[in-house]
């Protein structure tokens, strides 16, 4: 992780650590904080606790998003302090809706100049963000709204498993992982498990990102905590609730970053520091998929 972030995430980059609730790579966010990257533009539909931590640590000057909150809990307090009070520094924002952000990645991944969507009619969002533009259909004159492509410099995608070549397989919520990866200039795949190519080829339908577009593969078990990896460990809802208290107090937040990020050498330390009992609590039961037969056609 250290090498991948050092080489592929550069000061001033736009960075998308995607994943909708599921498979958010906190381990990568923490490594970016540890390496004191600066002036990043952070892109995500839901900035989530990971971007609250990164914004608090001072790595970002701009946020591109569609829903700014701690899901099911409340606010992201470090980000709110910067937007409401410029505390300790202003934070530029560029705001869309979920469908707007999803469509931006689609346009970016498809090499299109914009995506049209039926949204934003009579909403104040296009006034707040002039990059959301009404256009007329060339066929019947109907008005739709255009959103611009989003092509991050770097996308960081967590997957349940990948091979050394970067072919990555995901199950459970897919979010915009695929779209963000295809839209990005550079892609870091982080996985729970490294598997052989035969495992990938036995179930090609589950491959979301091909190694063709991947610049680095990092094996980082439990790298999503407090987010989750379906079938591997549960979302740590207790942490999301705790973060609300931690982030309300800037001093407590700084202390948390020191203890859980800066004082650790990497995510393996974090996993160990959490302790076995914490991980046992997050272990799900089994619910295996059925098998299908692709057929042998030799």
């Amino acid at each position, binding site marked *: 992780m250290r090498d991948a972030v050092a080489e592929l995430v550069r000061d001033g980059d736009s960075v998308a650590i995607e994943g*909708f*609730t*599921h498979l958010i790579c906190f381990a990568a966010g923490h490594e970016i904080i540890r390496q004191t990257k600066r002036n990043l533009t952070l892109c995500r*539909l*839901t900035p989530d606790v990971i971007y609250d931590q990164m914004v608090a640590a001072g790595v970002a000057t701009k946020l591109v*998003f*569609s*829903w*700014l*909150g701690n*899901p*099911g*809990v409340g*606010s992201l307090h470090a*980000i*709110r302090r910067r*937007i*409401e009070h410029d505390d300790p520094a202003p934070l530029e924002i560029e*705001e*869309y*809706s*979920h*469908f707007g952000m*999803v*469509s931006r990645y*689609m346009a970016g991944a498809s090499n299109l100049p914009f995506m049209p*969507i*039926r*949204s*934003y*009619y*009579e*909403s*104040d*969002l296009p006034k*707040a963000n002039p990059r959301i533009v009404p256009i007329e259909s060339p066929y019947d004159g*109907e008005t739709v709204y255009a959103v611009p492509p989003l092509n991050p410099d770097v996308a960081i995608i967590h997957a349940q498993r990948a091979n050394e070549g970067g072919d990555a397989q995901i*199950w*459970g*919520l*897919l*979010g*915009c992982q*695929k*779209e963000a990866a295809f839209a990005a200039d550079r892609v870091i795949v982080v996985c729970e498990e490294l598997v052989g190519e035969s495992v990938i080829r036995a179930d090609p339908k589950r491959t979301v990102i091909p190694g063709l577009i991947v610049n680095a593969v990092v094996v980082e078990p439990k790298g999503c905590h407090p987010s*989750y990896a*379906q079938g591997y460990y*549960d*979302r740590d*809802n207790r942490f*999301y609730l705790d973060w609300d208290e931690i982030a309300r107090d800037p001093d407590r937040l700084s202390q948390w970053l020191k203890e859980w990020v800066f004082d650790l050498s990497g995510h393996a330390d974090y996993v160990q520091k959490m302790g076995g009992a914490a991980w046992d609590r997050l272990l*799900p039961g089994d*619910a295996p998929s059925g098998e299908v037969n692709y057929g042998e056609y030799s």
Partner: protein
Amino acid sequence: MSWSANEMMIVASARWLEGERVCFVGVGLPNIAVNLAKRTVSPAMELVYESGVFGAEPARLPLSIGDPTLVTRSTAVTSMYDLFAFYLQAGLIDVGFLQGAQIDKFGNLNTTVIGDYEKPKVRLPGSGGAVEIAINARKVFVIMPQRSRSFVETIDFRTSPGHSGDPEHDAARGWLGNGPSAVVTDLGEYRFDDATGEMTLVNLHPGVTLDQVNENTGWEMRVPADVGETPPPTDEELRLIREELDPDGVYSK
């Protein structure tokens, strides 16, 4: 049996879902209301979550709309583009739930900022999928507590459009949806007047007075002569909420 204000909101919202087929679910009170409806008035209802799940059968109460329990044993997991484009934008969603920090008499909702957008007093979460739900779901139900600071004459930012106040304009919009059709609060149930698009009291919850409604509304609420009373929660509805849907009382206490 006695009940909390939140339980009354959950029960009233669930009953509005009778006969609905496909519901776009938000987390919190709507989530419990929809799951209650599935166990009572609409057993065949399909639950859709914006995280990319169709036909969810949650085995526990999810804290977030991206909880892994929504995936396991669901009918389909989709990309978010498929969910918003094929399911919502193309018209497969019968009902969506919205909430807001502010609502006006026409059902316009603000979930973006209190104060000025550039220099907000309070920065709220923003749209998420709300603006798309408001425009593309065939019906929209709003569920939120009623206070004079949230039921306001003028909202600070229009995140999701409601009715315009001009029914001819609304009819000409050509959207799949056309502004919220019902609002459920801790005080009562409301619909929107066909002629004016204005919020109108339908039922007061048991024990709630008209004075309470007026004290907690920032405009003069339309009150017809024949205001009714919301039927109280049944023992079975309360049992389902307390024993199955929210045993810790996270949302319903």
